[in-house]
């Protein structure tokens, strides 16, 4: 399968993390699954006109896998002048290449939902491919489908975890992914099923409501430090990063919800939990406020001494 990778309004971080892939690494992806990179801005011999010619080919011929990293910049006034690439506004390449793509994969929160550059006032008019935050539509429109009948497949994350990207590429390659596997935000449901809370090393503190008030302190970060662990679907505490050595909460800082369609706008202010009458306004999905409150009172009471946070 031929893969073509474009970078829109991005920081290249998803590519950087993708390069950290261990097994299969990008080279093995070709050896093992026959996924061939026909173009990636950082892995190519071509430059200048030759890139334009190559991209032009795939505006006429089908491409199996079109990966887009970064949002589509449409400003100012829908001219796309804020992002020029390979001879014309970047957004025109997206329009032309998407018509001939069998699958389009939005790698990272920016191409999925707009991500960082859509922070208000979004004065550059950046769009995700089929969403702007939670709102369907985006650059290609709500009803857009690729040649094989899929919407854009979203693999959010800031950056997207290479494991999630690669597993979806493999599944497409083996013909195992169907449009039914996607959730309401067009994410493969089997990848974005669990909450970050699963596998968090601070879970025991959460259980007994031992809540940290400062970063670097032992304790759960949900009630005071704005941790989105129980609020967003992210497998980074299950698979973790770098051979299992890291994740946000493993390194002691709160999740800021970077995989969420509402990221980052819905996460502000970072490192602070919005509360009403001492209870976080956003509670774990499906949990009732009164039940949460009661369970936490009991939890606090049940807390063994060894877990109690030493204050001061």
């Amino acid at each position, binding site marked *: 399968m031929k893969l073509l990778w474009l*970078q829109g309004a*991005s*920081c*290249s*971080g*998803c590519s*950087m*993390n993708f*390069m*950290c*892939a261990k097994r299969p*690494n990008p*080279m093995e992806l070709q050896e093992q699954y026959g996924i061939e990179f026909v173009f990636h*801005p950082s*892995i*190519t*011999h*071509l*430059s*200048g*006109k030759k*890139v*334009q010619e190559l991209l032009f080919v795939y505006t006429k011929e089908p491409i199996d896998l079109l990966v887009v990293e970064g949002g589509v*910049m449409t400003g*100012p006034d829908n001219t796309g002048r*804020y*992002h*020029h*690439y*390979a001879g014309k506004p*970047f957004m025109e390449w997206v329009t032309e290449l998407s018509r001939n793509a069998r699958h389009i994969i939005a790698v990272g929160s920016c191409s999925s939902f707009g991500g*960082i550059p859509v*922070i*208000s*006032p979004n*004065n*550059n008019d*950046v769009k995700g491919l089929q969403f702007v935050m939670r709102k369907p539509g985006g650059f290609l429109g709500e009803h857009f489908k690729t040649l094989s009948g899929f919407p854009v497949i979203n693999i959010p994350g*800031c*950056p997207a975890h290479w494991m999630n990207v690669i597993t979806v590429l493999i599944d497409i390659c083996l013909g195992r992914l169907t449009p039914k596997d996607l959730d309401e935000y067009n994410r493969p449901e089997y990848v974005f099923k669990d909450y970050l809370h699963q596998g968090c090393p601070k879970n025991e503190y959460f259980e007994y409501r031992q809540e940290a008030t*400062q*970063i*670097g302190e032992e304790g759960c970060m949900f009630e005071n430090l704005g941790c989105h662990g129980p609020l967003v679907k992210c497998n980074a505490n299950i698979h*973790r*990063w*770098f051979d*299992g*050595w*890291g994740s*946000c909460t*493993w*390194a*002691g*800082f709160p999740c800021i919800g970077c995989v969420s369609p509402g990221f*980052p706008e819905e*996460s*502000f*202010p*970072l490192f*602070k939990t919005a509360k009403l009458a001492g209870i976080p306004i956003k509670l774990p999905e499906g949990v009732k406020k009164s039940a949460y409150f009661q369970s936490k009172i009991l939890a606090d009471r049940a807390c063994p001494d060894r877990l109690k946070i030493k204050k001061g």
Partner: protein
Amino acid sequence: MSNSKIIDIDPVTRVEGDLRFQARCDENGLVTEAHASGSMFRGFERFLIGKAPMDALGITPRICGMCSAAQSYVCSNALRDLFQVEMPANGYHIKNIVLGIENIQNHFTHFYLLFGPDLAHPRYEKKKLYQKINQRFRINGESYKRFITLRNDFMNMMGIFGGRWPHNLAMQPGGTSESLNDRLRVNYGYSHFLAFKKGIETFFLGCSIQEWLKIDTLAKLDDYLEKQQNRSDLSLFLRAGIAFGLDKLGKGPEKYISSGAYDLIDGSFLFKPGFYDGTFKDFSHQHITESVKYSFFEDDEIPGHHPFQGKTLPDNGGNKEKYSWVKAPRYQDQVVEVGPLARMIVLQDPLILDLFKQNGASVWLRVFARFQEAIRTLATLDEWILSIRINAPNINHWEEVTQGEGVGMGSAARGILGHWIQVEKGIISRYQVITPTAINASPKDYNHLPGPMEMATIGTQIQDDNDPLELLHIIRSYDPCLVCSCHVGKING
């Protein structure tokens, strides 16, 4: 540029971000004028206005996926300055380790993935060392592949000390967030470090780092090259680079600034700050001014101003003189280069300085200085890891302020990085960032002086208009990262 004989590289690939490069040549094929155009604009500083100061810590690393830790480092420094909080010793060590991992990784990645493959260009086929070069340095060549494996193991350290990469929040104003009272993690981190160091010594240097750092003159370098017989990647590059003429290409402004790299607890730096223009002088960020004469922004009343006074609006596209989303930072109105070469010269690294004094700057020396910095950083990383005190604090508590300002300076892989924050009524009223590539890949300024990278191409003989390899060597030798530079446009200051 409207003349007929124009080379237009759009896009330049194997750089980070979107760069277009145009060069005008005379009838002899010599470059007479060059335009580096950053071709994307995001306006990061705009979305920081109105946010809580700590929000900057989550947003600014996302300016750049390559130097994300450097952005964190500098942002946390700016916030530390704003909140006036001291860091414990572990905080310094761990921040420097995380930044060090990123920079070292960036330096080698630049060579193996971005710069090196050009040496395997068919144009050099007839040259003596081509066989070896092609076998090792081409895309998916032996060394290319080996480096990726080595790098990806090394990056496990980033998991241990930073949690993830890019974009971690481990670096905080008062120190770092990990609970490293887990001895296992530190020990395994060290082990990953040692494995990487061994790999670099075996394949890259062909000798131990200690032995390498004893080479401090051109004469000793010649001995090393003689002994290596092109076995190590470094020796092969150094010899082939000269054989291919890279030592006579891309001189640049030969004036350098560094804001200092890796803060140490006593207030000094591992690589000291300074300004070199033929003699060594002190550096102050007060001397940095920015010009927008050739950038896609509305002209200022003041032609060049310090970033703190910046008031800039994207223009309407009508002015055909303008060609880049990158502004033109200058130091005391002079065109200066930043990056590892600048840092090694300002540091007066004996070997790099000797080579510079004998033969001047070039693509070859710029790449070599990047290696030299990476190796010196590797040597020190060792000490930092061993200096971490288990069970001692990594972080101090701070009180947020509702009014004030802070400056953070630091060194990303590609050169100096500065963040300036101003806070009023508890929210950010102004945030300014200057990135290294904004300096190196800048367009002309209000004095019509070309930016460092543009300057480095002027006078270059282009062999083949349709395949301007010389230009690509020069551009890539700067390791440009347009992702940073153009994303950091300012609106309404």
